[in-house]
């Protein structure tokens, strides 16, 4: 009963997502939709490590940038199709993720966040410095040669569908995590690491599993970004603000939930686009509001919007259910 219900909702959403490009003509709107999907993918990936396992990474920009650079450099230097580059990008992101996680998983709370920031800064400086490989601060440019093999499309709608597939893949992984014991273990680690270890959970192993899924997905999203933008530089893909934004999206939606990051992306990405275009004469205004909003959101609704949204239908439902069958199903239906 429960599964059918939630699947109905999901199938409805997917159908809407599939037909949207048929109705949206404007490039600006399609662009926003693609960004929403991309950020929803990355936030879902961050959510596995940050939301479920409670390891608040502020270095996810590393995997994003690595993904972008890996596929692009392979394509530019060796003519390797980004379709293959996609897998290599994921593999490299995962390897670097393990390399970062292995030592830093010993650190708790804010210290883990600080260490991930430090890693991200090291990577950024290396990318800026290693000009032979990355072209330094000049950035890399992919020539616009549309073709399926090149993963470059003339139509925005093609990018949209590509982003949609990636997003559904990420969603499927989060769904899997949420519904299997991995999710429960990760939540146990988040709530109390010592107790989790005492109960026999291999804390480092499960944190590492979360890191692998999280890093790999973020790396793939980096490839999408590179193929969509066709130009990027170290400061745009290895950027602390990017890491913060990903975390913010997840927090706004609801950490440690399947749809939280999606909700967050649907709210934050368009807001960002609107704010960016509304204060062109006063630079900084959009990010000033952004910073204030960040403070207010984490102070007043640390659990995000999703739990609040869920409460509303549950109230109506519980009344009906009470009338019909004495309210035995309240808890499971509101979940």
């Amino acid at each position, binding site marked *: 009963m429960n599964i059918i219900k939630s699947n109905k909702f999901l199938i409805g959403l997917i159908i809407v997502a599939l037909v949207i490009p048929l109705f949206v003509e404007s490039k600006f709107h399609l662009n926003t939709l693609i960004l929403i999907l991309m950020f929803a993918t990355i936030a879902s990936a961050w959510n596995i490590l940050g939301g479920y396992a409670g390891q*608040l990474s*502020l270095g996810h920009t590393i995997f994003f940038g690595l993904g972008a650079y890996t596929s692009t450099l392979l394509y530019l230097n060796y003519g390797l199709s980004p379709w293959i580059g996609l897998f290599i990008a994921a593999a490299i992101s995962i390897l670097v993720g393990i390399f970062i996680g292995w*030592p*830093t998983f*010993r*650190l*708790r*709370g*804010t*210290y883990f*966040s*600080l*260490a991930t*920031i*430090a*890693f991200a*800064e*090291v990577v950024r*400086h*290396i990318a*800026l*410095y290693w000009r032979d490989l990355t072209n330094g601060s000049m950035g890399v440019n992919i020539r616009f040669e549309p073709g399926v093999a090149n993963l470059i499309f003339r139509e925005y709608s093609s990018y949209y569908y590509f982003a949609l597939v990636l997003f559904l893949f990420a969603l499927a992984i989060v769904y899997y995590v949420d519904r299997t014991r991995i999710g429960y273990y990760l939540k146990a680690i988040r709530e109390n690491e010592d107790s989790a270890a005492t109960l026999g959970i291999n804390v480092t192993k499960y944190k590492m599993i979360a890191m692998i899924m999280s890093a790999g997905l973020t790396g793939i999203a980096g490839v999408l970004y590179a193929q969509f933008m066709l130009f990027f530089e170290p400061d745009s893909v290895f950027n*602390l*603000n990017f890491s*913060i934004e990903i*975390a*913010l999206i997840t*927090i706004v939606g609801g*950490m440690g939930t399947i749809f939280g990051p999606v909700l967050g992306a649907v709210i934050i990405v368009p807001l960002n686009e609107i704010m960016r275009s509304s204060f062109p004469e*006063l*630079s*900084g*205004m*959009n*990010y*000033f509001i*952004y*910073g*204030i*909003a*960040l*403070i207010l959101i*984490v*102070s007043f609704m*640390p659990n995000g919007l999703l739990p609040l949204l869920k409460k509303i239908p549950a109230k109506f439902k519980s009344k009906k259910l009470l009338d019909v069958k004495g309210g035995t199903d309240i808890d499971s239906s509101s979940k």
Partner: protein
Amino acid sequence: MTILQTLISGLLLGGIYSLISMGLNLILGVVRIVNFAHGEFLMIAMYLSFVFYSTMGLDPYVSGILVIACLFILGLITQRFLIQPILDTPDTTKIFVTLGLSIALQNLALMTMGANHMSVRTSYQSSVISIGELAISIPRLISFIVAISVAALLYLFLQKTMVGKAVRAVSMQRQAAHLMGINVKKIYLLAFGIGIGLVGLAGSMLTPIYSVYPTLGTSFVLIAFVVVVLGGMGSMFGAFFGGLIIGLVEALSGVLLETGLKEAVYFAIFILVLLFRPSGIFGLGKGAEEVG
């Protein structure tokens, strides 16, 4: 000879890092908050110093006392209205409140002061003391002497005065300090105020040396994190020497390696210390792993 010159300028620069890091460390040790907006307070201090100079013609060293007072009050306000309410919340909230403050302050500066680099012009700006082939910049020397004196004063304050002892007690054992009749909230206010006040002093010392711009704080706060972790959490002594060490490392790697890599070098140090000695070189025992 160039190496010696480099070492000296690194050491002098390290004095400023020490001041900023001691403030960060005091807040971290006592209030148990990683203040991601620390660098933005430095930026504010330097803008204040600049504004005092351009409107009233006050020399940065003279206006320093005003800047320190302003920043101290700003610190009290921040602690009372922003940090106090979130002290018992999860890490997420603590991290993102100060991060949000950092983003907001940075962009407030961008809105009000613009993106251009601004600097003051003083008569002593480029004057140097020459000893043989060595040239020591006077503003940098002054900033270093001030840093050392303030570090010594702070040390005396924490070790010898009753209030200082209370501050240390709170940083060691919140609960016990509370039971001994120490007003913990007041100590938090004091620690945050002094921490930000130190940044005010550092800002005044930096204004004759550096130009100020809205994102200036980011690089300094990252350096301060490195210093605090290197020196050890809660250890003022550690923050002071950590600052000097990072100043030296930065200057040396700028000469031995290429300038573009100096940040990578001290971040690598940061990661290594976190991994192998999370309690820092002068740490007080309780390490990074235990403090959440």
